[in-house]
């Protein structure tokens, strides 16, 4: 547990980096400090490992004032991941990861074995062990940075905008990996970012910092989206917070229609029987494995020769699907909005169609959770 007690940082020229922070970071959870630049989030983070000394107030780790410990020793017990990874260019990937174990006086072979273990858990190939940092992509470097921070198995992990220097696709992947690692390791993670979407994805708790180093709100992601405390927080989160909040509700409770699924082997005549019973304007054609093929407009189907197989028709693209078990209402809504039929296709993890849901049905589901 990390406790900030009135921790403040004033510079001699009068600038206030952090204006008296009172906040408790729970053990084993991910807490995100988010805010615009100059809001004091990084300064606050660095108070924890004494890279910044507060001008007043204290920071406690498990009830002990960080100032009571030798800074170098304290820092070796706290993992740190920095923007751009901060890898040592003259050391191989393996030796970068082994840095803190070696500082702690582990033997070289034990430190290297630990490095190999960590490379695997962050998803690096063993063949990369003897490479130098510049031979890796930005995303790979950042994974080495995470492995290095975890090397001595510290209970606390400080992450200072770790993913902001990589492109969005790689960033999403790194976030997924962090979530997976964290589910396994249960570290006390303190994560700084200026990206509210990243904060909502990563954080169990989010602290929104405002201009002038003031803590504006400290809450769970869901509460933050539903109940922003003031105009600043509301505008920082963005206008679409209502839609983003849907990410917290699973899609598996949606009522999916199966009566509009048509087999591509069926003739137009048989298909018309099916759709007339359903009474829907669009039907989805699937193959024998229930993989989606495309939408068919029921009105146009009436003008097709009755003996024709559906597989021979020109179908309307079904767009992107949502995974009923894993995705949220937000993903389902997005799929429905982008679909030319105004309907989203729900699939199982193998991509087989479980059913479809219309925008109107989605609207009811959203209404019921709001």
């Amino acid at each position, binding site marked *: 547990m990390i406790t900030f007690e009135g921790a403040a940082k004033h510079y001699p020229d009068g600038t206030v980096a952090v204006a008296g922070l009172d906040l408790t970071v729970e053990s084993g959870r991910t807490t995100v400090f988010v805010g615009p630049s100059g809001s004091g989030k990084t300064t606050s983070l660095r108070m924890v*490992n004494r*890279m910044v000394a507060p001008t007043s107030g204290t920071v406690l780790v498990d009830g002990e004032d960080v100032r009571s410990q030798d*800074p*170098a*020793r*304290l*820092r*070796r017990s706290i993992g*740190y991941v*920095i*923007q*751009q*990874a*901060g*890898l*040592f*260019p*003259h*050391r*191989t990937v393996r030796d970068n990861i082994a*840095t*803190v174990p070696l*500082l702690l006086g582990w033997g070289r072979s034990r430190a290297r074995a630990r490095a190999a273990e960590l490379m695997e858990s962050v*998803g690096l*190939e063993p*063949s990369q062990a003897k*490479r*130098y*940092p*510049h*031979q*890796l*992509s*930005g*995303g*790979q470097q950042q994974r080495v*940075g995470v492995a*290095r921070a975890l090397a001595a198995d510290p209970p606390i992990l*400080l992450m200072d905008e770790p993913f902001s220097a*990589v*492109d969005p*696709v*790689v960033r*999403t*992947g*790194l976030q*997924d*990996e962090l979530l997976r690692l964290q589910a396994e390791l249960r570290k006390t993670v303190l994560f700084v970012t200026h990206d509210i979407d990243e904060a909502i994805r990563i954080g169990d708790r989010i602290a929104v910092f405002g201009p002038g180093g003031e803590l504006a709100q400290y809450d769970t992601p869901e509460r933050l989206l539903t109940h922003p405390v003031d105009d600043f927080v509301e505008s920082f989160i963005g206008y679409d917070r209502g839609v983003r909040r849907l990410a917290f509700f699973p899609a598996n409770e949606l009522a999916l229609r199966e009566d509009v699924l048509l087999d591509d082997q069926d003739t137009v005549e048989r298909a018309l029987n099916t759709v007339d019973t359903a009474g829907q304007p669009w039907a989805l054609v699937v193959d024998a494995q229930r993989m989606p093929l495309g939408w068919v407009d029921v009105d146009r189907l009436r003008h097709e020769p009755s003996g024709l197989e559906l597989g021979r028709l020109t179908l309307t693209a079904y767009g992107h699907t949502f995974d009923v078990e894993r995705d949220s209402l937000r993903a389902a809504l997005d799929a429905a909005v982008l679909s030319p039929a105004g309907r989203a296709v729900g699939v199982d993890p193998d991509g087989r169609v479980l059913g479809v849901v219309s925008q109107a049905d989605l609207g009811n589901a959203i209404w019921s959770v709001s």
Partner: protein
Amino acid sequence: MNAVWDWISAVADWAAANWNPPGDQERGVWPRLVEHARLAYLSILIGLAAALPLGLACVRWTRLYPPVLTGVNVLYAVPSIALFFLMLPYTGFSDWTAIVPLALYTLVILLPNVVDGLRQVPDHVRQAAVAMGFGPLRRLLTVETPVAVPVIIAGLRVASVATISMVSVASLVGLGGLGQLILSEGFRRQFDAPIVVGIVLTVVLAFVTDALLVLSQRLLTPWVRRDGRRRKRKQRAAVPAGEAAAVDAGADPTQSAETGNGAHPWMS
């Protein structure tokens, strides 16, 4: 054309005849070359040995650097001939008369390189080192100094060529290796073969020394990116955007295939 050839062969004949005349140790070409190399290398090594701790100190205590830099620059402005003569009362005609001033010049050239090299360590690397729990001294010695090696060696290359050429000036005080050929054998006797031999061997010595330094840099810093080659490779290998910064493509051509297999979709 023939006149040129005659002249060249006359010079070569003179060099062969005087290469290592038995019983006349002082006047041979070979002993002069050895003396030249000894004076130059000792000066460079002593200059380097002084520049490293001084540079480290200037980085550690930043306020030291401006006065130290001004001080050594003033020394550099003193003509070498003057320094050699100033040394004479203290060191006589020993090697030190040449080595002390030459080592000082090496120091002047190297000091800014040592300081700049240590300072050019990227800020995020330095901060990561602090956050990992490196103390200031350990950080200086195990992170900043190795990262500074390429810049220091670049300075050494300039300093070594300058020193090797300047050793000849010390022939005015009776030292100077190949400079003796130029001054006493050639100039005083109005005879051009020793002058040419002295110049050619000085240049050869400078070249060989430079090549040794380049080689030692390759060995000491296997981690330095060789930019020109890399960029060409990068253009040739069509890698996806995320991986684009990656990969010394030549080192492991299977790499992009491995990472694209979907096990870690974010690796590519």
